[in-house]
């Protein structure tokens, strides 16, 4: 609803000495016509007082009924004696029940300011506005009960949030349970073939390719790393060269590759700790590494 605002400025002349402390009263009022029963009226009142003068809170109207047809809904005050600017915001509610359009008056305010024992009064003048009837004077009806607007049907409890919560938490629970089962190899993932060596063989092939002899150091190191990860995964822990014997006791199928394991770890040691790829590739040439990885993959498949 577009609200036309009427700016009403009332300067209080310096007639009485007590009023000289109030410099100006400005009221921003809403449109003065077209109000129905129940409408709100908002006023912004700005009072400029001399600095050091304080507003007496007791002189403010109290929220509640002002007259039998007018309620003060809200009242807020901003301002301080130091600034001398006081802003009041008042919201009234009109409850005048009218049969025709007529003029009503919101009563004025008398606000008291004080500085020490001295008092000054700011008069906000009354404000007139027009109220209009809400409905016709003599409505046609058969039964007086028909005059009333119907009841608001009591609502049911809104269950949309409950349903949404159940769906989201249910999906999350299912997802995390699936992830956990996958991670732990629970049903239905307990038959999932875990073939780290087959995977490693593919990776080693990708890193080494068909080069027979010497390959760049980083590719060789990556191939070694892939093998290390596969061996660690098979052992279930990080495996170093001194653990080979115990690993082969746990996985006897790989026993015949014991010598290749030793060569692999020796080559890896040289590549990673001595940074000597050339030496490492002499101990275990790339094609031998490839063959080693394939051999392990073959045993792995056979063991299952």
């Amino acid at each position, binding site marked *: 609803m577009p609200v036309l605002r009427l700016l009403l400025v009332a300067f209080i002349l310096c007639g009485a000495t007590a009023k000289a402390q109030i410099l100006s009263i400005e009221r921003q009022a809403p449109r003065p016509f077209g109000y129905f029963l129940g409408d709100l009226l908002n006023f912004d009142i700005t009072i400029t007082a001399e600095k050091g003068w304080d507003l007496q809170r007791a002189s403010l109207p109290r929220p509640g009924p002002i*007259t039998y047809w007018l309620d003060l809904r809200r009242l807020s005050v901003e301002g301080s004696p130091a600034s001398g600017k006081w802003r009041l915001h008042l919201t009234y*509610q009109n409850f005048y029940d009218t049969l025709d359009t007529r003029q009503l008056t919101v009563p004025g305010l008398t606000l008291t300011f004080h500085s020490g024992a001295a008092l000054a009064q700011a008069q906000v003048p009354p404000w007139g506005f027009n109220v209009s009837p809400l409905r016709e004077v003599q409505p046609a009806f058969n039964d007086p009960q028909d005059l009333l607007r119907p009841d608001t049907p009591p609502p049911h409890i809104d269950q949309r949030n409950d349903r949404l919560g159940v769906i989201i938490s249910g999906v999350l629970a299912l997802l995390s349970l699936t992830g956990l089962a996958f991670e732990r190899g629970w049903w239905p993932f307990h038959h999932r073939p875990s073939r780290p060596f087959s995977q490693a063989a593919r990776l080693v092939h990708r890193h080494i390719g068909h080069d027979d002899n010497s390959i760049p150091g980083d590719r060789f190191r990556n191939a070694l790393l892939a093998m290390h990860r596969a061996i660690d995964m098979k052992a279930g822990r990080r495996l170093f060269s001194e653990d080979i014997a115990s690993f082969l006791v746990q996985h006897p199928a790989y026993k015949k590759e014991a010598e290749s394991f030793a060569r692999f770890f020796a080559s890896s040691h040289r590549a990673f700790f001595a940074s000597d790829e050339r030496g490492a590739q002499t101990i275990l040439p790339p094609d031998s590494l490839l063959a080693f990885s394939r051999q392990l993959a073959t045993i792995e498949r056979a063991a299952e």
Partner: protein
Amino acid sequence: MPVRDKAMTLLSFMRPARPILLATLLAVSLGALIFFGQALISHNADNQLIDTLLSGHDITIADHAMPEVLFARAQFLMTHNKLDEAQSLVDKLDHGADTPLLTAAQYNLANARLRKAFDFIENTRIDQAEPLVNLARAGYRRSLGIDPEFWDARYNLDVAMRLIRDFPGYEKTLGDEMVAKPKELWTDLPGKPKGLP
């Protein structure tokens, strides 16, 4: 070291933490599932209570029932001519409920009072109608105080106010003269109450 390898290193570091994260997520989501599931079940039961009450069967309800249930029972009492009991339930809504519910309940209660007042007026028992109309007016005003845009409440307040006009009891300068003439009192009513001129 290429980025991919860094990512691989990071992933392998995270690997031991993954089951813990998943187990935590599972526990939290199961807790939430139980919470929302219980809410769904109990609200479902409450909604069935509301249906039963609205279909005209009385059920005793718990003191700490959901505001919607309180409202439904208050509505039952209103439609069964137990306005005082309904009032005590509506008062309960004043503490816990969201305002739209309270506004609607006060409005419905005021409607119930006004309907009862109409019955009294039709039977020419005006002295009994008057307090009901006044209570209804106060109820509409409270509703409108919470929600000024509640046009049905404005309309019915207008009906109630025309039944019994205000007398400006104090401060005659405020507002217009409003001397209610006897013949204006019943402008809304079908004919005049029997027995009156």
